[in-house]
C-alpha cells in the first residue's frame, strides 16, 4: 500500500470514528449500562411510549403525503414544464435551505390562533398549532423535496419515449402510468421514501416550536429524548436515543439496498 493512501485511510477512519462511531457507541454503552431489567423498564416508560406512538402517527401521515406530492410534483415539473412548474422546481428546495427553527417560526406565524390562516381555522373551531396537525405540517415541510429530488433526475433521464410507445400500442394513460412510469421510478421513489422517513422521525427544531412540546400529548420521540436530558433523566434519554439510532440503522440499510438497486438500474445492469 502506498504511504499517502495509508495516511488517507487513517484520517478518514479517524474522522468518521470521532464523529460517528464513538458517540453512537457511547449511546449503546449508556443504554445498556444498567442491565437488561432496567432497560426493559425504561422501554416501558409511559411518556416515551406515547412519544413513540405520536412519532409513528406523524410518519404514517407525513410520509405518504410527501410521496404523493413528490411524485406528482416531479411529473408536473418534468412532463408538463411551464413557468409555474419551473418556479415550483426552485421553491421545492427551500425547506432544505431553511433552518428548521425558521420553518417552525413561519408555521407558527401562519397557523397560530391569531396568525394569518390560524384565525380562520380558529373560527371553525380547529386548533392547528400545538397539536398533531402542526407536527405533521412541520414534518411535511422539512422533508418536502426529498422524494422529488430523487425522482426528477430519473424522469428526465428516461424521457417520455417509453410512455409514447406504450400509447401507440393502445395503452390508456392510467395503464401507462402504472405499467411504465411508476415501474421506472419505483426505486428512486423508494429511496426518497426512506430519506423522508429518516427526516420525519429525526426532526427536532421545527417540531419543537410548532408542537409546544407538551409531554404525553405533543411530544415526539426526539422531543422526549431532549426533555429527558434537560430534566437530568439522562438514562431514559439514552434509551430513547438507542431506539432512534436503531431505526436510523434500519432506514440506512433500506436506503443502501434501494440505492444499490437504483444505481444498477441507471447503469442498465439490473435484472
Amino acid at each position, binding site marked *: 500500500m502506498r504511504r499517502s493512501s495509508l495516511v488517507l485511510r487513517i484520517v478518514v477512519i479517524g474522522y468518521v470514528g470521532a464523529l460517528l462511531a464513538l458517540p453512537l457507541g457511547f449511546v449503546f454503552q449508556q443504554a445498556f449500562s444498567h442491565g437488561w431489567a432496567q432497560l426493559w423498564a425504561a422501554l416501558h416508560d409511559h411518556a416515551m411510549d406515547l412519544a413513540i406512538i405520536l412519532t409513528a402517527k406523524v410518519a404514517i401521515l407525513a410520509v405518504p403525503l410527501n410521496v404523493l406530492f413528490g411524485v406528482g410534483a416531479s411529473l408536473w415539473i418534468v412532463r408538463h414544464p411551464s413557468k409555474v412548474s419551473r418556479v415550483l422546481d426552485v421553491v421545492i428546495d427551500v425547506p432544505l435551505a431553511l433552518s428548521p427553527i425558521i420553518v417552525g417560526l413561519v408555521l407558527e406565524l401562519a397557523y397560530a390562533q391569531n396568525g394569518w390562516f390560524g384565525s380562520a381555522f380558529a373560527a371553525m373551531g380547529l386548533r392547528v398549532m400545538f397539536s398533531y396537525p402542526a407536527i405533521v405540517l412541520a414534518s411535511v415541510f422539512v422533508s418536502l423535496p426529498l422524494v422529488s429530488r430523487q425522482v426528477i433526475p430519473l424522469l428526465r433521464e428516461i424521457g417520455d419515449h417509453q410512455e409514447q410507445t406504450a*400509447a401507440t400500442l393502445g395503452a390508456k394513460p392510467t395503464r401507462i402510468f402504472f405499467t411504465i412510469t411508476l415501474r421506472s421510478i419505483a426505486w428512486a421513489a423508494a429511496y426518497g421514501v426512506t430519506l423522508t422517513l429518516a427526516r420525519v422521525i429525526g426532526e427536532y427544531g421545527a417540531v419543537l416550536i410548532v408542537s409546544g412540546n407538551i409531554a404525553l400529548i405533543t411530544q415526539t420521540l426526539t422531543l422526549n429524548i431532549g426533555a429527558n436530558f434537560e430534566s437530568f433523566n439522562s438514562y431514559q434519554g439514552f434509551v430513547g436515543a438507542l431506539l432512534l439510532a436503531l431505526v436510523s440503522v434500519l432506514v440506512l440499510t433500506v436506503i443502501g439496498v434501494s440505492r444499490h438497486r437504483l444505481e444498477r438500474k441507471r447503469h442498465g445492469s439490473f435484472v
Partner: protein
Amino acid sequence: MAVSYSGVTKSYRGRLVLDGISDVVNEGELTALLGPSGSGKSTLLKIIAGLTPLDSGRVSLAGKDVTNTPARDRHIGFCFQDYAPFRHLSLRENIAYGLKVQHVARAQRREQVDELLRLVRLEDYADQYPHQLSGGQRQRMALARALAIKPDVLLLDEPFAALDAQVRAELRSWVRSLQQELGITTILVTHDQVEAMEIADRLVILNEGRIEQAGRPPFVYDHPATEFVASFLGPITSLGDIAYRPHELELVGVSDAAETLEVREVVRLGFEVRVILTNPKGSTTWVQLTHDQVKQINPRVGQRFGVRVRSTLAIPAATAAEPATPRETSHHEGSH
C-alpha cells in the same frame, strides 16, 4: 393503409417547424421522409402517429380523418430512434405489451410473441432484458413490439442512425424485405440520402418545414426541383450559371470547346477522381472521372481543358436560394 395529411402546420417555441405541408402515402409503399436535422421530419412523423398535436391541418388514415384521434386508437406502429425499450421488462414482455393491452388470452399471446420472435430472429433472447441486447437486437425488438398489434401503418424514426455501419447496412435490407413481405405501409425518417434511395419506394424531401419535392428516388435524383434537393441527394457543381452532377461532365481537348478551364487540383479517391478546374473569372467547377478516364486523358495541374456536358440536371444555379414549387405533387391546401 394509405396515409394522407394536408396543411399540417406546427410551431414550437415560436419557431415554425412545419409550414402547411400535404402529401399522400400510398398503401403498401415505403416512403422516406428525407431532410437535414431541423427540417421537421421527425415532428411530422409524431403528428401522423398522434404523439404530437398539430396547430392546423388534417391527418387521414384510409380516407378517415384521425386528426383528433388519440395515438392509442390510431393503430399505428411507431419506433423511436432510441428504440425506447421498456427497461424493466424482458424482451418477451416488451413484445407482449400491446397484446396484453388488447386482452389477448395468455396462450394465444405466447404463440404470437413466439412467432414475432422468430420473425425478428430473437428466439434465443426471449428472456433477456433490454440492456443485455445489442443495438441491432434492440431495434428488432422495437420493430417486433410495434408489429405485435398488427398495425395498419408503421412509422420508423431514424431507425438505423444509432447503429454501426455494418449492422446498419444489414438491417436496412432486412427491414426492406420484411416490409415488402408484410406489405405494410411504412414511413421512415432519415437524414441519410443513400439510405433513403436504397430503401424507399418514394422520397419526400423536407427542408425548413416545407416539402421541397416528392417522387420516386431515381426521378428525384435526375430531376431535382430545387438546388437544395439536387445538392442533398448527391454532389453538384456549377458551370456558368447551371448546376450539374459532376459525373455528368467530361473533359475534352481545348480545340473542341468554346471556353477552356485550367486544372487547379486532381484528387484521387481510388476509383473516383475529382478534377477541380477554374475559369478565367475565378469560379470553380469540378468534374468526377473514373480511374480509367483519368488514365486516358491524364490531367495535370495547370493544363487547360474544355468541359462537355453529357446530360443536364438543369436547375438554374441563380434561383437556387429561392424556395421552388415542388413537382409531381402539389402542396397547397385544398389540392387533394
